């Protein structure tokens, strides 16, 4: 155990975690030059394409230091706030953390939230000032920021460039010297914590864990404490670039287990693995994933419902944080109401359905979960506008609030405060981190930041603002259900629950946006927004006037047929509701309101 070091790499988005992981893998000879590629651990297509990390990745490295071989277990974590629970579990599996800070950007919101998470778990923090190769790097200023944030000595901050390979040896030495070896009792009952799971189409679900006490052996009968399910450890091993089967994994180490699990839902990140006949207590800090945003997902072709279900089930194998249940919409037929960790997560799910499963889907207006409180105090959870009870049957509505931390330059404070006020926020605190960097704390309704808040924040701070948030509870609000009608028919998939003071503005802008997004058709289309029976906004899409090509002789005929066949295919991405064809993207129009 003395020769093991478990650490994770944490940082704000894009500060260079995965690139640093690349350098560590190379320096330790874990991967040879031939297999090397940028952000090697980001192995999902989507991660590679978008250049972001979506889930944690663990890998084991061997490092020889002063004649002694050390086992280093590294976990690269995602930076985006949607995945913060996953980061917290990765942190819980380690004794130390490399806290990366971009030397040009300085400390940002997730730098702080991830640092706090790491400190909560008593992790040894190794601050790394990354990207010092950039001409815009400000090493002195940012080092000062780090020093005052962590309260460390300036000499503790390692100056590095993951891109240029500067400072890598210093980082490896610091890992050996500064991060404590894991402590754990081999004699105690097995206690291991799940921090990740991956679906392998041939072998079922692979579960990644960290052993705290005891040891796990191949063939052991084990139990997952929170789900209560028991399994046999068919195969266990360590996570090199390829998996390496082992007979035993002892306290202090990180490994994987394959035990014939077919259903992703059975594997909950944060759950505890123990022996069936000699169980331990559960590791603290386990939570069921809490979806923040809900939306309906429907096939564009109604006949593809079963296919969509099968695809969602497969997707869930890979992504246990995606939850869903069947739902029906008057406008769209059969589909699913899904819960997501946030908007990025939702986008990723939609994109994966389209790319990996070749499904064409409609995602309806995203919503947060509201609570309708009845006069006797009972709570009805509302995950979709259609579930909103009639106002006279309930006492009031409550909506989820968050505490948001925004870090920015002082020159943008004014802009940001007015944005947050506009979003019904209350400022709670304002702290100067340095002479010009400020941390603002707000309490805001979650529904207000779901859509375009982050983009707005970026724009009005010229990119110098970062956001982190956590849920703090439900509060009473006057929410109303806003409906959209096309040619007089209500399209339930376009309904939304909005604050009464904003309903008029929302309805007006949504109607305008729909007018842009719905193409002209053979008939004029009336677009109306209403609250109850009251129409609050209207627009119209004029009827198509002309759609006919002039010439059609001899050779034109083939060409024209192909053109029209293409035109017809384009219609397939539209959904017919009543006599109106609605393009897929119109259902997401709310996301583009500005």
């Amino acid at each position, binding site marked *: 155990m003395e020769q093991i070091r478990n650490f994770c790499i944490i940082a704000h988005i894009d500060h260079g975690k995965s690139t640093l992981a690349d350098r560590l893998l190379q320096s330790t000879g874990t991967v040879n030059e031939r297999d090397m590629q940028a952000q090697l651990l980001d192995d999902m297509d989507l991660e590679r394409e978008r250049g972001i990390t979506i889930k944690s990745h663990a890998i084991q490295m061997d490092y020889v230091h002063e004649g002694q071989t050390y086992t280093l277990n590294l976990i690269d974590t995602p930076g985006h706030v949607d995945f913060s629970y996953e980061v917290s579990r990765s942190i819980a599996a380690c004794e130390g953390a490399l806290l990366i800070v971009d030397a040009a950007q300085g400390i940002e919101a997730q730098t702080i939230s991830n640092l706090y998470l790491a400190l909560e778990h008593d992790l040894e923090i190794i601050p790394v000032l990354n990207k010092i190769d950039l001409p815009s790097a400000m090493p002195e200023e940012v080092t000062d920021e780090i020093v005052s944030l962590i309260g460390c000595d300036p000499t503790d901050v390692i100056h590095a460039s993951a891109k240029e390979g500067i400072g890598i040896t210093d980082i490896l030495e610091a890992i050996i010297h500064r991060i404590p070896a894991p402590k754990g009792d081999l004699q105690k009952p097995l206690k291991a914590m799940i921090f990740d799971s991956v679906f392998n189409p041939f072998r079922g679900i692979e579960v990644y864990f960290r052993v705290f006490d005891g040891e796990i052996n191949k063939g052991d009968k084990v139990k997952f404490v929170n789900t209560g399910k028991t399994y046999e450890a068919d195969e266990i091993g360590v996570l090199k670039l390829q998996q390496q089967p082992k007979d035993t994994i002892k306290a202090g180490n990180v490994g994987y287990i394959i035990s014939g699990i077919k259903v992703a839902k059975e594997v909950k990140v944060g759950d505890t693995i123990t022996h069936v006949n000699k169980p331990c207590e559960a590791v603290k800090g386990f939570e069921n994933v809490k979806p923040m945003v809900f939306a309906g997902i429907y096939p564009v072709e109604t006949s593809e419902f079963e296919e969509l279900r099968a695809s969602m089930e497969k997707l869930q194998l890979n992504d246990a944080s995606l939850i869903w249940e069947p739902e029906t919409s008057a406008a769209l037929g059969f589909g699913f109401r899904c819960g997501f960790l946030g908007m990025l997560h939702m986008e990723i799910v939609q994109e994966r359905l389209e790319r990996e499963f070749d499904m064409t889907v409609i995602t309806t207006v995203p919503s947060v979960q509201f609570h309708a409180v009845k006069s006797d105090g009972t709570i009805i959870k509302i995950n979709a506008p259609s579930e909103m009870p009639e106002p006279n049957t309930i006492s009031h509505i409550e909506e989820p609030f968050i505490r948001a931390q925004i870090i920015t330059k002082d020159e943008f404070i004014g802009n940001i405060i007015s944005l947050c006020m506009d979003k019904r926020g209350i400022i709670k605190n304002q702290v100067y981190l340095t002479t010009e960097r400020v941390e603002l704390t707000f309490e805001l309704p979650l529904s207000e930041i779901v859509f375009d808040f982050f983009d707005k924040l970026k724009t009005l701070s010229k990119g110098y603002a970062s956001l982190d948030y956590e849920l703090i509870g439900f509060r009473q609000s006057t929410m109303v259900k806003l409906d959209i009608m096309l040619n007089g028919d209500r399209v339930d998939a376009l309904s939304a629950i909005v604050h009464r003071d904003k309903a008029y503005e929302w309805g007006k802008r949504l109607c305008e946006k729909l007018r842009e997004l719905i193409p002209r058709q053979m008939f004029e289309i009336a677009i109306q927004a209403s609250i109850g029976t009251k129409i609050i906004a209207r627009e119209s899409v004029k009827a198509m006037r*002309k759609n006919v*090509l002039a010439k059609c002789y001899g*050779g034109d005929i083939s060409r024209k047929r192909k053109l029209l066949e293409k035109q017809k295919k384009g219609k397939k991405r539209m959904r017919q509701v009543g006599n109106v064809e609605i393009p897929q993207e119109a259902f997401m129009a709310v996301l583009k309101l500005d």
Partner: protein
Amino acid sequence: MTVALCEEIKLRQNYLEREPINTVYFGGGTPSILSKDNLSSILETIHKYFSVNHDAEITLEANPDDLNSEKLRDLYGLGVNRLSIGIQSFKEEVLHFLNRAHNRKQALNSVSEARNIGFNNISIDLIYGIPINSHEDWENDLHEITKIKPEHISSYCLTIEPKTVFGHRAKMGTLSLKGEDFEARQYELLIEKLKSIGYEHYEVSNFCLPGMHSKHNSSYWKQAKYLGIGPGAHSYNGASRQFNVTNNHKYISSLYKDNIPTQQEVLSREDKVNEYLLTGLRTIWGVDLDYLKDNYDYDLKKLKGSYVNNLIDNRFATLDANDLKLTEEGLLLADEISASLFI
């Protein structure tokens, strides 16, 4: 080139299975540059290898500036009995805008000269939707028709094709079309005017005095077989469509070796149905739903019944004796409608 054309005619003498020919059409590009001798040897070759009906329609496409009285006399003498003249507009500015070589005077003269010589079946082309042409300008253009009364008029909306002068100008942002509403209005003006002076609107872009339909073009829309000769020409034999190479040099050198430089596309049942719909709906003859059902087992009433009913209820189409025909309103949306009715 003429030798190559004659060679292709000879090689393909059996293409139409020796059925008599009703129409001959010299078109695509500028066939009027052919000399009298060239034209005569091509016609001779056609007569040699095909049986051409004595009252066949023989059309030649020409620009007004090519048609002096000598040329017209030659054509008439060779048996050409129909002219399709690319007049496009009677307005100098518009002709200039369209980069045409002729002027207003030549446009008018070409028609009157042709009449003097004896041509009694003349078609002219007109273009609408031109950005510099207001609705009033367009109405003035149309008014000229009353003076020359051609037997037939084809009128097309200006389109911008990539890799043309217009395409380039559009890309540079110096030219833009006026859009759907503007074009639709001019199209309506066209129809109103021509109908009011006795023309029949028999296809989206084609109008004629009673009985003077273009026999040749109509046969394309009635799924007739046709043989196209020359580079880029298309042919159809009822089952497949052939298209020749477009490159003149390749065309000639291939025929020199007795090879017809053609590719073919076999039409599937779907292709045939879709082509029937798209061409038929453009004409006053419409599409025959029984024909579709009997020949292709495509029961439009059953498969697209509610759509068809909707068209009829909203006066985009009529259905009589199982012929589905588009109204003038429907014709404006012919592409949208036929795509919706495709298999």
